């Protein structure tokens, strides 16, 4: 049973210096902004962060990087028009970058959650990003061996949760959330609303509660007081 709270600060309070943290989101969609801000306030440093990007603008992950809390970032697309906080620290040699093709990043996270020790991917074969990695020809095609990306923590955003931690997402905000939830020892999710157990149709659960440790209810409906607000919780169980 996950812990249900309305406090993002409480949710991240145990994260130690030096932790590896998967942070969901692709751009702003699915980015757990409140959890990242709580982590910034919490003060943990020397972090390794896994995210598709390296922060945009001045808030969220960008602020965490700007504040010098991130020792290393694992991502596919650090450089953007508004990634100035990352850019500065990178050029100054203050942050380490592991650049990973986006699909390999996703598959490595998925592999960690699914107990796969490594996998051969065609993506990146013959490129700079495969340098130093084991390669193999399989049925005439080149593949690179990639390893799982595990973490102590995942911070993700979902749309709706029930108190058992079953989650649904909304549109392209789903992105990395479901796979990151599987790959971390402690998964902390911020959600827009919490509905009573039984109100999310078992057929439409995207992340089963087994993967969730802490639910931060941003809508603050409190345990079991939420009401389903849209289609993502509909279905015969609630009908």
């Amino acid at each position: 049973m996950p812990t249900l709270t309305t406090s993002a600060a409480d949710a991240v309070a145990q994260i130690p210096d030096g932790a590896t943290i998967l942070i969901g989101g692709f751009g702003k969609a699915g980015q757990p902004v409140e959890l990242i801000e709580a982590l910034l306030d919490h003060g943990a440093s020397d972090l390794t962060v896994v995210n598709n990007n390296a922060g945009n603008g001045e808030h969220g992950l960008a602020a965490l990087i700007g504040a010098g809390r991130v020792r290393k970032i694992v991502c596919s697309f650090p450089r953007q028009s508004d990634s100035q906080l990352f850019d500065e620290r990178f050029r100054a040699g203050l942050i380490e970058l592991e650049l990973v093709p986006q699909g390999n990043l996703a598959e490595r996270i998925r592999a960690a959650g699914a107990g796969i020790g490594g996998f051969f991917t065609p993506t990146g074969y013959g490129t700079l990003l495969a340098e130093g990695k084991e390669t193999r020809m399989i049925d005439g095609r080149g593949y690179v061996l990639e390893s799982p990306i595990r973490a102590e923590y995942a911070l993700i955003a979902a749309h709706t949760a029930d108190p058992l931690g079953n989650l649904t997402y909304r549109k392209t905000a789903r992105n990395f959330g479901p796979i990151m939830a599987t790959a971390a020892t402690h998964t902390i999710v911020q959600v827009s609303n919490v509905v009573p157990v039984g109100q999310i149709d078992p057929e439409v659960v995207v992340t089963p509660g087994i993967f969730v440790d802490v639910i931060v209810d941003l809508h603050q409906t409190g345990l079991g007081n939420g009401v389903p607000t849209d289609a993502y919780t509909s279905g015969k169980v609630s009908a």
Partner: protein
Amino acid sequence: MSERLTRDRLAEIIAADIPSGSFVNLGIGQPTLVSNYFSSDQKVTLHTENGMLGMGPVAVGDEIDEDLINAGKIPITELPGASYFHHGDSFGIMRGGHLDICVLGAFQVSATGDLANWHTGDPGAIPAVGGAMDLATGAKEIFVMMNLFTKTGESKLVPACTYPLTGIGCVTRVYTDVAIFEILSAGVRVRETYGMEFTELQSRVDVPLLPPEN
């Protein structure tokens, strides 16, 4: 001295040993009895490897739905808060180490926790493994539930398995009709005996046993 345990009493003891809030997979056969003994405030969530968390009791009468079965292909029910997923994701839950406990039957368990439960090695047998190896490898803890002795009186807790292995060093506890064993790095500790003194137990099991702690 207490009596040898019946299967139901053994199932009751295993159920009581499972921590509140655990995610559990119960193997086909004897281990399914365990589900009868969970208390309602224990909040155990059952996984069935054919694609469900939140499995409820066996379906009866009008509840029977041919699309809702467990790994033993028995019609079951769904509890509030259940979820469905495909086989790839379901075995990812197992292989990824997300289940707390799996209770399995066994032909043999070795002193170091090797498990043999899928194949007798009989050259005439048609082998069938199902999810046994995935379960043995994936759960954080494997509890074995079995009779300690074969019909001919041989111990199924052995120095090394002679039957083909299901998994290596995976079993953490062995629940039997005459004793409960904990497989520790220091050796095999007897937690309790039933209907048999420790000395007699040791004389019939060819594995050095650590006596119960008081």
